[in-house]
């Protein structure tokens, strides 16, 4: 009798535990198969959370790059306008000198932009994988005009995982003279882009009054730079779309995994409450019967 009440009491404890925790499986011995399924799902969920964190970091990096790209596009556009105006041959040297001064200013702005550092990490955005050193360094003459820009970064980019087995490269190297791989932001040999040299050439041709070179060479060179910037903006957009898609996938998978975890190890509230009431009734009845039986004996009637 005591054994039965103890068994019912243990059942009550288990059911109350399930109600309060919402879990039917808490320890491996409760249900080993469900435990393994839940641990697998939790591992996948944990990896997804990390992918989401990766995506957030990469989206921030992609946004920073996009901001620089927009500014560089504007610089290329302004330089193209100057080249068009100056290349028409209608401007006098004074005007050309003013244009040269504007181009010089554009070069300085572009230099500042391509040496942008990640505000959170302090790492340079456009040095390839050499992110600790300033990638672009300018040489100037006595007049303060930039005569050349040296790139000290590399043409590599990092890959980061955004879903299991899916990697993406957000970074853009400042220059790529190898003819293959990720296109360089300023210099890309395979497409003829070389923004700093082209701006310096325009600046020099303006100062020299060489309008024919401006119209014949500089304008077409700048077109290559514009095309390169257009490509970079499109690439950045594509990257952002992939990141957004991966983020949605991770979020959806998280919902599915939560459901799977709940199915494997969660307690069915209705079923558990019904069982709890049944066992509670049985327990109370067992206690009642035990107390009644214990108190009645033939001895009571004889004494």
């Amino acid at each position, binding site marked *: 009798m005591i*054994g039965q009440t103890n*068994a019912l009491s243990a059942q009550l404890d288990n059911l109350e535990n399930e109600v309060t*925790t*919402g*879990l039917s*499986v*808490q*320890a*491996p*011995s*409760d*249900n*080993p*198969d469900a*435990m*393994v399924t*839940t*641990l*697998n799902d*939790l*591992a996948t969920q*944990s*990896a997804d*959370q*990390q*992918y989401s*964190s*990766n995506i957030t*970091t*990469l989206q921030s990096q992609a946004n920073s790059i996009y901001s620089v790209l927009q500014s560089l596009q504007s610089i290329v556009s302004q330089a193209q306008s100057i080249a068009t105006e100056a290349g028409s041959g209608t401007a006098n040297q004074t005007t050309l000198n003013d244009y040269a001064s504007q181009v010089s200013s554009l070069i300085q702005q572009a230099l500042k932009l391509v040496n942008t550092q990640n505000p959170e*990490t302090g*790492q340079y955005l456009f*040095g*390839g*994988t*050499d*992110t*600790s050193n300033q990638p672009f360094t300018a040489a100037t003459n006595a007049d303060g005009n930039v005569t050349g820009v040296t790139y000290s970064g*590399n043409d*590599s980019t*990092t*890959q*980061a*995982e955004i879903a*299991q*087995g899916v*990697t993406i490269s957000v970074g853009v190297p400042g220059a790529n003279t190898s003819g293959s791989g990720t296109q360089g932001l300023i210099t890309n040999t395979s497409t003829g882009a070389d923004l700093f040299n082209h701006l310096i050439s325009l600046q020099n041709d303006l100062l020299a009054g060489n309008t024919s070179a401006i119209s014949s060479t500089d304008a077409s060179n700048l077109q290559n730079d514009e095309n390169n910037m257009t490509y970079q903006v499109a690439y950045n957009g594509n990257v952002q779309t992939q990141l957004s898609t991966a983020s949605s996938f991770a979020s959806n998978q998280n919902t599915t995994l*939560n459901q799977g*975890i*709940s199915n494997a*190890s*969660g*307690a069915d*509230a209705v079923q558990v409450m019904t069982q709890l009431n049944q066992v509670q009734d049985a327990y109370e009845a067992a206690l009642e019967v035990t107390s009644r039986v214990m108190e009645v*004996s*033939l*001895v009571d009637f*004889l004494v």
Partner: protein
Amino acid sequence: MAGQSMETQMTGISVTGQNLANVNTTGYTRQTVDIQTNPDIMTTIGPEGTGAEAVSIQQAVDTLLNGQIQGQQSVSSYWNGQQSALESVQDELDEFLSSTSTSGSSSSSDDTTTSSGLSTLLNNVFNDFQAVATSPTSIADRQQLISDAQSLASAFNQIQSSLIQEITTLNTSLSNDVDSANQLISGIASLNQQISAAEFGGGNANDLLDEQQQDLNNLAQLTDITTTAGADGTVNVSVNGQTLVSGSQVVNTLQTYDPTNGNGNLLVQTSSGTPLTLTGGSMQGTIDARDGTLSTLASSLNLLANSIITQVNSVYTAGYSLTGSTGADFFTGTGADNIAVNSSLINDPSLFQASGSATASGDNTIALQLAELADAPQSNLQNETFSDSLDQTIGSFGDSLQTANNQVSNQTAVMNMLTNQQSSISGVSLDQEMTNLLSFQQAYEASAEVVTTVNQMLGDTLQMGSAS
């Protein structure tokens, strides 16, 4: 005749009193008095009765049922031994699911299930490799990685240490069981001698037999024994074909021995040096838990830790740190008992070799390869990933404990059924004993009345003689 009847009924009252006195005595077997009619005396008018006498006091015992209980006690103790050992290891493993509310709501739909233990720590480390791969120069991410890797290594060390401690405890428990068994063996031999002496010449050693059965049950809890009853109430005891007790003689005692000379995992043999293959009882439960589930768990965790150390280091050593250093290991040690994070990293996270190039601090080639190890099947882990292998190890351990729990539950039901049966045969019922008491009392009173009546008749007869 009436006087003898009073004596007989007094014996009945005495036996009832003995039963009532032992109503709460564990192992006591209800006794009954056997009353037989005396032989008739042939007279001219026919046979004349000479009353009744108490010829023996018997135990209400079912020897077959006692044998069944004895056998089932071995099985119950075997599974209890396993359950007890594995439950404490499950606590040490600390691999539990818990539920946390994410919005402060009481609704279960807002709850998030989380796990503790090695599985979570392992996931954290490989996620941290991902974080470093995404931000290769971040010192904060490197610090988090090193901290989580230390937690993982420490958990491996603690669990392995706990398993070794548990195995030591089980060996001690086995030695204690052997000591207890030897005391019982000696006690049974001694009781055999006393019972044999008491029953010599037709006596009954009921209370000694109860004590003997109790000792046999206790011995059966320790190991699976075979018993053979002798004609004089003695019992011979053997285990695994080896005689332990023969009559009043202790033929063999039990002792532990270390079969591999040094690893401390003891087994049981007889005092004559014959190794025993036990199949039940707490001793074998202890041995099977130690050499089966716990040994498998320890070797699986050790293999996993070794595999993590080897695979991570093989990728990691080729990498370059933020200072340009290379060639160091990430983990030191060879297994679960001594895995640790390279101490130089703990002091300086910039030394973590995430880059594949000495000149490119932003390169993440090595960190990414380390992160991708999480999804790589490992040939020495049956082509499972680290995480899957650990989950399977945990599941397999859970299976063993679940089996032990189920068997303990089943055995409890079997033992309840058998002891209830035994109780209905051998147990003392207050109601029944009180009924017997009344019956004997009334019979005694009736016999006393006969004596009084006869006495009165004799008196009347003597008065008639003196009057004449």
